[in-house]
């Protein structure tokens, strides 16, 4: 029975990574290849990228402030929801995440199902 897992990508904004145009394109190529591989296997439920800025709402008074929310390194850049047998299989997929070279991190979490 396949379960849904969310891969959450954490890292700094690419514009701070000092990549050359050629490196950015190469990095994009890695992402396309990874995305293509997962889609070929039919395991992608959906995936999205997030803008680096937004609003931060907190406290009893719902205080609104502008993002970015945390210092560079832990910015959530995007996520995929994928299908996998178990957490180990999901981690195996996450090992192909292309941004490890640029100090990125992947968090793998199982999506809760209520029956």
């Amino acid at each position, binding site marked *: 029975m396949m379960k849904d897992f969310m891969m959450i990508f954490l890292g700094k904004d690419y*514009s701070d990574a000092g990549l*050359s*145009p050629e490196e*950015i394109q190469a990095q994009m*190529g890695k*992402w*396309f290849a*990874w995305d293509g591989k997962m889609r070929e296997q039919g395991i992608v439920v959906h995936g999205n*990228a997030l803008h680096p800025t937004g609003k931060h709402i907190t406290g009893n008074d719902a205080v609104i402030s502008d993002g970015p929310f945390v210092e560079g390194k832990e910015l959530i850049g995007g996520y995929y929801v994928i299908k996998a047998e178990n957490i180990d299989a999901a981690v195996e997929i996450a090992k*192909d995440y292309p941004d490890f070279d640029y100090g990125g991190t992947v968090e793998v979490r199982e999506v809760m199902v209520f029956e």
Partner: protein
Amino acid sequence: MTNENNTGQLVDHLFRYEYGKMVATLSRFLGLSHLDVVEDLVQETFAQALQSWKTTKPPDNPAAWLNTVAKRKAIDLIRKKKSDKNREFQVSLTGPATIQIEELFMDAEIPDSQLRMIFACCHPDLSQSDQIALTLKVVSGFGSKEIASALLTKTETIKKRIQRARNFLKSNNIALSIPSGNQLIKRLASVHLALYLLFNEGYASSHHVDHIRRDVCVEAMRLCRITVEHPVTRHPDNMALLALMCFHASRFDSRLNENGDMILLDRQDRSLWDSQLINIGRYHLHLATRQNGFSSPYHWEAAISAQHAAAKTFNDTNWTVILSCYKNLYALKPSEQIRLNQVIVLLQLKDLDKARHLYDCIEQGQCDATLYHSVGAEIAMASGNTRQAAQQLRRAYEATNSPSTRKLIQQKIDNLS
């Protein structure tokens, strides 16, 4: 890991090309004194593209997407700065910003903007090494690390050169314009020299060879073509320079063996020479000489290269014509390196006396030491003096750090004994 060569649906080097185009275009809009701001803005646009395409896919027309986003960022920047109390920015924006940004992004304007940028980057008051670094960064979209690896320098050195050059443009209020009148010829000569040196950096045989170096050659050719194709800058010199580059570039595939070692002209498989590039070279050399004949050193260098291209085998080379080309080249641009090349040609013509005589006149310190001693070894060998030949070859070996050149010399030493 996934396949690194798979760049999805994007054309090779798309970002690098777009970088140069967008920086040139936006600098016309925001003014060259804001080059650093413009470069940051384009960089941000690319980062945004990577961020938003990576989990979906690129739009149908990626270049148009990039241009639109960069345009919007530039307009936002102006709005923001106008409302700020940033007077410096406000004042300097009134000039160039009056040009409509939409007009600048039209296809027909792009070569014009790039040409203006080439003139700025190759400003004669900048040192040649600064010109080359800035051109590769700003016009060609190379990263500092890539430039450093192509020029065999440290990344930090390149960053310093680029920063120094940017500061020069800013503090001297260099305009992003195509020079006219008396200035045009002088500035154009500076551009030609920079492009010539840029090509040579990529082509130089004494360095280790890398794909990035080939990219540098292709880029030098592209920029040279921009000067040839623009009606204002079209000149016999840049046509001759383009011809020269084409002839050299036609041999790319035959210059290296499968181990990446250099193959000299006499051993190259001439069937690998790119006949299309040779034809383009011939065509441009013809155009370059139509009005005033062979009027610059580029013309004569191209003529020499054309002779090699025309020879079906090494033995078919017309050394008599090449020798007279070198003499004419020397008359326009006297250098010991050219005389050394003449010695090589004289040796091919079996004129040992003249070769030895000319060789003895050459100032050793003024030319490439490895080549100097290698030629000395050839003369000694032709004279039957094996011991001296071996001595010269060992000096040639010591004078280079290039593994492939050393390998070639070692082979010659081994063949002597």
